[in-house]
């Protein structure tokens, strides 16, 4: 039997099972149908698009918000890699908003999000992904936006059981509680598997028109998309955050280990997305562009790092992060030469510019593949 404690306006918390119950609905505006507004967390993926569409179909005014943490996979990556230039570029969150005919508000949370990444209360998932804390943080920010703009409830595209951390059945109440959103958080795609929320109880939305999707399968969402005539959408499941990527996680761990503290700036996490990262010595790392787009991107940082490029053969741009003496610079040049068109040549001319502006040209013998230990690679080779 639940034992309730008063935790806020009209909400009571069972102190045994930590499930919350709204005891009174007196505050609910039951007599003004069609007059309510929802704010939707829009990632740009299919689920958030469908969740928003479901609510729009019920005549609710919806506006979207998208949080920029710095760890987004799309956008940056597509802009950097030149081979992607033949494909149309778009910000999927913006595209979803335009398709649905709703406004979208970007919220820059780079600084606030650091605490979530560095010290998540609920820990990390398989890699460096603090998904449960992240979701709670974003819904909390959505709640703040909702209150500031006098909206009524929040919607997300969460589907019970779809993600292994934040969308477990027992995790979803945690998000609602710790964000402070409680029953103003509606998950249209799986609402019928959850306790009715305020919008449902108050009649703002018809619960019968919501869904009971669950599990890892994407088929229900794709079927719903077809039903709505939605044929184009971003990758349907996950993969939107670099923190879930094991190679990126390895690079971020290396960054923190090398610095001796868990901190980062936007520039740091941007550079982790680009190039091959090798650590030939504990005190310096090379970031080597893999193609023209990455080389151009790395060139933008050349004023702040020692940078290396091949002269005699086509090759990558590389940044050197850390401290390197003359011997180290020669080694770095040999590594960079290995990834140039001159990898099999007896000698490659390499230009090195140190951070103090000093430049030098070196003739080096490229390292062979066998001379670059696997242990030098941070993340993927």
């Amino acid at each position, binding site marked *: 039997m639940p034992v309730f404690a008063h935790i806020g306006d009209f909400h009571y918390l069972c102190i045994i099972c930590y499930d919350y119950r709204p005891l009174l609905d007196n505050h609910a505006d039951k007599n003004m149908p069609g007059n309510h507004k929802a704010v939707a967390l829009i990632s740009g993926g299919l689920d958030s698009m469908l969740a928003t569409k479901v609510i729009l179909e019920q005549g609710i005014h919806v506006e979207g918000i998208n949080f920029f943490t710095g760890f987004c996979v*799309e956008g940056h990556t597509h802009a950097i890699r030149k081979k992607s230039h033949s494909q149309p*570029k778009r*910000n999927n969150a913006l595209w979803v908003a335009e398709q649905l005919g709703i406004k*979208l508000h970007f919220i820059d949370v780079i600084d606030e999000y650091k605490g979530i990444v560095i010290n998540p209360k609920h820990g990390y998932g398989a890699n460096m992904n603090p998904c449960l804390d992240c979701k709670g943080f974003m819904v909390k920010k959505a709640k703040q936006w909702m209150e500031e703009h006098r909206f009524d409830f929040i919607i997300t595209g969460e589907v019970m059981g779809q993600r292994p951390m934040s969308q477990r059945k027992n995790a979803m109440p945690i998000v609602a509680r710790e964000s402070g959103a409680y029953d103003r958080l509606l998950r249209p795609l799986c609402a019928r598997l959850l306790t009715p929320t305020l919008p449902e109880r108050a009649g703002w939305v018809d619960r019968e028109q919501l869904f009971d999707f669950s599990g890892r399968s994407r088929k229900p969402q794709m079927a719903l998309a077809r039903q709505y005539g939605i044929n184009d959408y971003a990758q349907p499941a996950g993969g939107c955050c670099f923190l879930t990527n094991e190679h990126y996680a390895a690079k971020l761990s290396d960054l923190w280990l090398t610095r001796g503290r868990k901190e980062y700036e936007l520039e740091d996490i941007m550079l982790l997305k680009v190039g091959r990262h090798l650590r030939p010595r504990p005190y310096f790392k090379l970031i080597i562009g893999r193609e023209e787009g990455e080389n151009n991107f790395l060139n933008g940082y050349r004023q702040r790092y020692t940078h290396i490029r091949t002269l005699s053969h086509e090759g990558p741009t590389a940044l050197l992060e850390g401290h390197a003496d003359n011997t180290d610079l020669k080694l770095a040049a040999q590594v960079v030469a290995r990834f140039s068109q001159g990898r099999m040549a007896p000698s490659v001319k390499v230009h090195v510019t140190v951070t103090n502006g000093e430049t030098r040209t070196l003739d080096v013998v490229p390292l062979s593949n066998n001379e670059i230990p696997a242990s030098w690679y941070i993340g993927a080779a």
Partner: protein
Amino acid sequence: MVYRRGMTHHTLDARHLLCPLPVIRTQNRMKTLNKGDVLVVTCTDPGAVNDIPMWCRINGHTVIGTATTNNEIMITIRSE
């Protein structure tokens, strides 16, 4: 482009920023503008050519010009 009397001209340097930062900077700057003001955003992110106009359409502002010089894109927006 013709500048009309009373139109205030603003500029935003969003070079070397990648998606979605050019859009975010544009959004935040547009909040400070009055109706009729013009903002010229300079970017180097190729995606901005699509993203910023899309943001404008969604939020009811008007792109009145786009120009590309070398690797820089200049997008001129009128606040509505």
